[in-house]
């Protein structure tokens, strides 16, 4: 690929992973009972739990996904930061304390505390599994993306590596180990993100991000009608031309190397702008900018095109304060890269061309979610749907909810949530700086947005890159551990113990949880490989939508509506899970993954929440009223 593997990165990575495993062995001794395995004995300090919340929550989506999305689409990525954090308000003000009062080990226990219903146990266990697996996919995808530049392995090796380590951690130690892993990596993630942001501000904004940054060429073009017939540099010859959706791409050849350029015909003199390209010939290896991968000609990109300070153009700003940086960015023109795929003869061609965008556009919504140019009612609905799911999803995530049972009291549950909000909020503010810093830092890999933050760190030195990548890997380990504990709890505790009523000793319950952790881990590995090219943040957004649709109506109505019945809860979970899952499976993104045309998707929504969340609430109310009346008439 375009990355160079560094020995120091490998050493730091191995030290990190060994430290995490050592910690797991140490705490494994404390996980002999079911209470120890699922809830760390309920004895974690609220401060530790608060930072562990942050470690659990700031997953691959937050560090890799949000920073990457901001780096590629500007403010639209920051909307995720806002929504994810706002979700904690729901958790703090409505859910934390009451849930702590009701719960035992899992959130299904809390839902079922009042009713002792088999249907609730079953549906809650299934929704926990579905949400956890959907949340696991992006973590695995993120793991794969990380090991490529760090260790030089292909994506699938990273997925298997993280899956195996986490299965080992969870199946040996359970919640205590998971808590301390999350505590350490949560704290380190925030500290080192701050280091990156201080470095970004200290560097300021530059036209040339660093010394060896590739300088993109422009050539004057001669047009004969719509055809390019010549270029200003005689060392280039024209090897072909392709029109795609109103854009014209021209293939040039120089010294036997072919490259793709984009025609800018609207300028006074038509010009060709150099682009990046990946060509997959019918036979032979892929060519990156016309040469084999080993030639390292496929550059990392993203730079400021025009910087204006106090009305005059400058080449660089020098160090900037946090507000001054954002202000200057709004007045800067930035070269982003858009992509187009087409067939040229026997070759499959992917071109990444320069797309100069004003800072004003970048620092407001609209580049990813079409709210102005190209907006339709569906795109607007998609935006509302996303914001709704992010707001309501957090307090319905099973792996977050189980953390409320690791503290000794309701007061500790509340305090740990506040610590989490402060820590997570601080981190999310940093994402805006990391994302935009990557956008102009000449470090983007146009093939994957997920590596933007670690690659930004690399522009400040290999050591920082190595530490940040190792922390990002630990981030994934921590989150995946929490998710697998939640999923194994759903299978072993909710389903086998409570629903099937299999008579198990305390030791057998822990063993069942560990076996379930291994199975869930293997499923996550397989899905992580299949979803390789998706932005991890987008995938987490889907997990939020399923959680908000399936679990939140049940949790909130149980806490705040006295007429809620057990049938209402189980039907709401079932309807919420199925509708959100159904809309996702019929969405344009999934159509793309199936290899079908996304425009043919029957539901043009990416985010299901706008329909499935209200449907969950309506189902609960209607079924509760119907079953309540039936019960009342039977009693009469």
């Amino acid at each position: 690929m375009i990355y160079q593997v560094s020995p120091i990165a490998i050493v730091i990575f191995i030290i990190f992973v060994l430290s995490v495993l050592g910690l797991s062995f140490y705490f494994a001794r404390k996980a002999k009972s079911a209470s120890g395995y699922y809830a760390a004995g309920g004895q974690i300090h609220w401060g530790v739990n608060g930072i562990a919340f942050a470690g659990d929550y700031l997953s691959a989506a937050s560090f890799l996904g949000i920073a990457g999305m901001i780096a590629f689409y500007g403010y639209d990525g920051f909307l995720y930061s806002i929504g994810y954090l706002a979700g904690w308000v729901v958790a703090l003000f409505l859910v934390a304390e009451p849930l702590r009062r009701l719960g035992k080990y899992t959130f299904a226990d809390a839902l079922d505390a009042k009713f002792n219903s088999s249907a609730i146990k079953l549906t809650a266990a299934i929704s926990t599994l579905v949400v956890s697996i959907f949340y696991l996919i992006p973590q695995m995808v993120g793991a794969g993306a990380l090991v490529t530049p760090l260790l030089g392995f292909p994506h699938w090796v990273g997925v298997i590596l993280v899956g195996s380590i986490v299965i080992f951690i969870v199946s040996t130690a359970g919640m205590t180990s998971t808590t301390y892993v999350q505590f350490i990596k949560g704290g380190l993630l925030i500290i080192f993100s701050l280091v990156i942001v201080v470095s970004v501000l200290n560097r300021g904004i530059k036209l040339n991000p660093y010394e060896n940054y590739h300088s993109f060429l422009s050539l004057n073009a001669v047009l004969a009608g719509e055809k390019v017939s010549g270029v200003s540099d005689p060392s280039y010859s024209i090897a072909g031309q392709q029109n795609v959706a109103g854009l014209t791409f021209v293939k040039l050849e120089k010294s036997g190397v072919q490259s793709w350029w984009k025609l800018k015909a609207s300028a006074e003199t038509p010009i060709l702008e150099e682009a990046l390209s990946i060509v997959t010939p019918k036979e032979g290896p892929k060519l990156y900018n016309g040469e084999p991968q080993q030639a390292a000609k496929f550059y990392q990109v993203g730079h400021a095109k025009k910087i204006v300070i106090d009305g005059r153009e400058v080449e660089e700003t020098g160090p900037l304060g946090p507000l001054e940086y954002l202000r200057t960015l709004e007045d800067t023109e930035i070269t982003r890269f858009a992509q187009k795929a087409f067939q040229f003869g026997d070759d499959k061609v992917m071109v990444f061309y320069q797309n100069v965008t004003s800072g004003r556009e970048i620092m407001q919504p609209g580049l990813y979610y079409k709210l102005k140019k190209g907006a339709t009612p569906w795109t607007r609905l998609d935006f509302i749907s996303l914001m709704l799911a992010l707001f309501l999803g957090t307090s319905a995530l099973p792996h977050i909810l189980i953390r409320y049972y690791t503290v000794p009291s309701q007061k500790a549950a509340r305090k740990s949530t506040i610590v989490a909000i402060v820590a997570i909020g601080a981190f999310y503010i940093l994402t805006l700086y990391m994302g935009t810093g990557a956008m102009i830092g000449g470090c983007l890999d146009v093939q994957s947005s997920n590596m933007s933050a670690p690659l930004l760190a690399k522009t400040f030195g290999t050591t920082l890159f190595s530490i940040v990548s190792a922390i990002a890997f630990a981030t994934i380990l921590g989150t995946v551990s929490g998710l697998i504990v939640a999923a194994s709890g759903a299978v072993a505790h909710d389903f086998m113990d409570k629903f099937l009523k299999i008579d198990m000793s305390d030791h057998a319950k822990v063993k069942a949880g560990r076996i379930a952790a291994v199975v869930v881990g293997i499923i996550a590995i397989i899905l992580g490989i299949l979803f390789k090219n998706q932005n991890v943040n987008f995938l987490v957004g889907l997990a939020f939508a399923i959680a908000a649709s399936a679990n939140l109506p049940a949790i909130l109505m149980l806490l705040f509506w006295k007429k809620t019945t057990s049938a209402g809860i189980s039907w709401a979970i079932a309807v919420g899970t199925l509708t959100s899952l159904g809309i996702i499976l019929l969405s344009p993104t999934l159509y793309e993954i199936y290899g079908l045309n996304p425009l043919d998707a029957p539901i043009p929504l990416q985010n299901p929440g706008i329909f499935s969340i209200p449907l969950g609430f309506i189902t609960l109310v209607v079924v509760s009223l119907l079953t309540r009346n039936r019960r009342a008439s039977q009693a009469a």
Partner: protein
Amino acid sequence: MHQQPAVELGRDLSIPKKTKLGVIFFLIYLAIYAGLVVIGTLFTSALEVRVFANLNLAVVYGMGLIILAAIMGLFYNHFCTKYEKQMHSKEKV
């Protein structure tokens, strides 16, 4: 058979007051959050207007929501702790 909790919890007499406060705080935050969604959906151009320290409304509103969550959380904890102390001292009397 019902599973026992990891730890047994004591009696908390301040629950009704804390619940009411939580709902009020939630509704306030929800209204402000909904404001960003409404502006983003229907009045998108308003988000580019520079409103504070020469920063646009999108940045100020977004950062403001994150900081507001932390501030409201601290206030909420302050009042909840106060209610808990009040109710428990009444119980002792």
